């Protein structure tokens, strides 16, 4: 070890460390919240401007103030014999019932298709056959079979939610880490234990993503479902308002539909953070 001489290292001149950029110092134009507020603000401003100056007739686009006033009127007096909240409640009940129906059938089927090549072979063509067909195209058939009651509406929405949940669940199951399954097998896990302790939790992020996509599709199928002999619901409300050329109610309905969809999405995202906090980390 005698032939090792330490290298002479010159003392480095003190260099001031560059200050770490903080959130506060981020330029205004690259903060996402600011940008979102900006785009919404500009839209509202333009809307107010063109309607206030009378460039567009209220029949085609009512001013924001009229829509806002309509919100309170509908909340109190209602429209077509139901208040806004009753319309929203009816729609939400349909979508949530459909979600329950779809999830309770699609998740088990997706698990089965993910686990068994036989089940995949049997059901994959069926799911892929109806999935790309727009719900409006098979709505008449459902009405012919099941009538114009609540069942048809819920079933139409459920069918729209079903496909993305089945596909996502099967993908999640098949993506289960091989070594995690092997590890559980080497602890003597039974098939049922493998499913319960390894495969199902592994597929949970995909299942939740499928539910998110499904809920979005289901909610947008709502208007179609409520075209058929409904007496309540946001889709029905917008449809009826259009027939009476109540453009302010149409615009209000669109905002409420969008707002509830946004709320559902935020709720599912919160559920994801709670149920699968490991996602993307392990």
């Amino acid at each position, binding site marked *: 070890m005698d032939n090792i001489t330490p290298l002479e290292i010159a003392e480095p001149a003190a260099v001031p460390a560059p200050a770490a950029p903080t959130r506060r110092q981020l330029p205004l134009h690259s903060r996402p919240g600011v940008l979102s507020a900006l785009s919404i603000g500009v839209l509202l401003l333009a809307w107010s401007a063109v309607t206030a100056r009378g460039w567009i007739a209220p029949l085609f686009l009512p001013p924001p103030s009229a829509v806002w006033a309509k919100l309170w009127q509908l909340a109190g007096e209602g429209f077509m014999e139901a208040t806004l909240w009753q319309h929203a409640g009816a729609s939400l009940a349909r979508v949530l019932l459909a979600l329950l129906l779809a999830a309770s059938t699609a998740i088990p089927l997706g698990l089965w298709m993910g686990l068994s090549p036989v089940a995949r072979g049997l059901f994959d063509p069926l799911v892929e056959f109806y999935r790309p067909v727009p719900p409006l195209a098979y709505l008449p058939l459902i009405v012919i079979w099941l009538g114009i009651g609540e069942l048809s509406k819920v079933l139409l929405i459920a069918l729209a939610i079903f496909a993305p949940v089945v596909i996502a669940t099967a993908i999640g199951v098949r993506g289960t*880490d091989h070594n995690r399954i092997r590890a559980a*097998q*080497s602890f*003597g*896990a039974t098939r049922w234990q493998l499913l319960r302790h390894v495969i199902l*939790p592994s597929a949970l992020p995909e299942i939740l993503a499928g539910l998110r996509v499904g809920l979005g599709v289901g909610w947008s199928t709502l208007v179609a479902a409520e075209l058929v002999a409904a007496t309540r619901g946001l889709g029905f409300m917008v449809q009826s308002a259009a027939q009476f050329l109540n453009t302010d109610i149409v615009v209000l309905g669109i905002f409420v539909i969008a707002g509830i969809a946004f709320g559902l999405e935020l709720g599912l995202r919160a559920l994801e953070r709670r149920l699968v906090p490991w996602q993307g*980390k*392990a």
Partner: protein
Amino acid sequence: MIELDRIALGYGGQDGHPLVLQQLSLSVEAGALLVLLGPSGCGKSSLLNLIAGFLPPLAGSISVNGRVVKGPGADRGVVFQDDALLPWLDVQGNVELPLRLKGVPAAERADTARHFLQLVDLRGQERKQVWELSGGMRQRVGIARALAADPQVLLMDEPFGALDALTRERMQELLLKVWAATGKTIVLVTHGVEEAAFLATHLVLLSRRPARIAEQLRLDFGRRFAAGEPARAIKSQPGFVAVRERVLASVLALDPALH
């Protein structure tokens, strides 16, 4: 005791497919630390998977303590290179998993998990989430989990391959400590020559595909470390250096990339 009797393995499972292992026979006594070393892609991990029961052999038989291996089983615990921990369970939950699958009552499995976490120096980390741990800590959780199942044999597939050099050395020492404390038979696959020479009581060098046993050595450096000799002292001794260089020369001679 692990006995491999004229094992053959080929992917596809039919004659005519390229063989991975051919006529491989091997036997080690209980309590041994068998290290499988060989050029990359030679089939050492496949051999480990055969003993674990994840793959069936094309021919020949494998038995562990007199019982013929027919599939994965709780008598053989496995530690994976990618740790294969379950991120939806915390550290203690992962170590308790094998006991939960066996139906052990909660209080008892918590005790057992704490015992093995302490053995791998993870006391106080019980409630951490898996993704909060470093690679070395995750491997230690993996070892504790495998031990909690109380297997007769611990099978380790390049367990320290993804760790940095310093962590790797510390993990080798920890493994020897655990081995001495539990008396388990260990089979470890590695491509680290120094690691193999340091840990093994039985070092088996596999040839290129189809793999046969190219060389077999009995060593005692790991035992000496377990008996109290410092690791660096062992690794700098001429005896250790000579073994390491000899094994390295054999591995280099077998490596297909160099031909």
